[in-house]
């Protein structure tokens, strides 16, 4: 889609508020896209495409409702359509190798961001997106359910399975028990202990 295609006839003009929301969401949109496809350039293309689609579909957005959920859903749907056509979308971003450590190497639970990013790309997409939405982006279970178009219980089970699988990929199967302990906590609890 091009900018001119996004501006199509017969639609009501975008309000300054709509534009402001679109501009404010760019950092989160880029982060979600980067996590989904694992590649900086492709993720930015994906985020821009989602912005154009959101602009074109602005009539369907109800002011006062959750703008983030609405545009994340647009991005996600476009992502799944694209990966069916283009296998490059799951490639690994080599620039990410420069990232810093979460903790110092001497500590017991030291872990590289790069390991997590690589492991994420090995997960089934539906588990990956839940970890990105709730674990990384801080979305509520309800919001994640709205974005993915699934039930609340499905969100929780995908999160728990995703966490377990991620730990198994990064640390080996021995770490799974420890990860399952964390999976029994709410994600907000886990985040607050990690802060």
């Amino acid at each position: 889609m091009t900018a001119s295609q996004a501006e199509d006839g017969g639609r009501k003009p975008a309000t300054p508020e709509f534009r402001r929301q679109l501009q404010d969401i760019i950092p989160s949109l880029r982060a979600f896209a980067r996590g989904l496809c694992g590649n900086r350039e492709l993720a930015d293309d994906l985020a821009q495409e989602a912005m154009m689609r959101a602009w074109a579909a602005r009539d369907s957005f109800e002011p006062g409702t959750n703008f983030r959920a609405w545009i994340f859903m647009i991005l996600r749907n476009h992502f799944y359509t694209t990966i069916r056509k283009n296998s490059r979308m799951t490639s690994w971003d080599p620039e990410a190798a420069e990232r810093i450590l979460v903790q110092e190497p001497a500590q017991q639970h030291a872990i590289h961001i790069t390991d997590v990013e690589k492991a994420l790309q090995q997960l089934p997409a539906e588990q990956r997106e839940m970890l990105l939405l709730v674990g990384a982006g801080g979305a509520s279970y309800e919001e994640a359910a709205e974005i993915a178009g699934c039930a609340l219980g499905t969100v929780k089970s995908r999160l728990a399975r995703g966490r377990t699988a991620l730990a198994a990929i990064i640390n080996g199967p021995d770490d799974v028990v420890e990860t399952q302990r964390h999976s029994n906590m709410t994600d907000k609890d886990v985040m607050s202990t990690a802060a």
Partner: protein
Amino acid sequence: MAERTLSKSKKRESKPMRFVNAVDPDFDPISAALRQMHDGVASEPVPDEFLLLLDQLDARMAEKDKKLS
């Protein structure tokens, strides 16, 4: 003396949080890594092409409004 106390207090405040995490049994490195991944990208400066795109959409809209009026 007061200065020495202040200095000690400052040292305590600047102690890295990592130490707390290292002894916290509930620390989950995977959750922390996910959050850090997200925050790392979200804190990058927004590339110009994104703002350019918004400007293009705005400009085309204004152009269309002009034609209609």
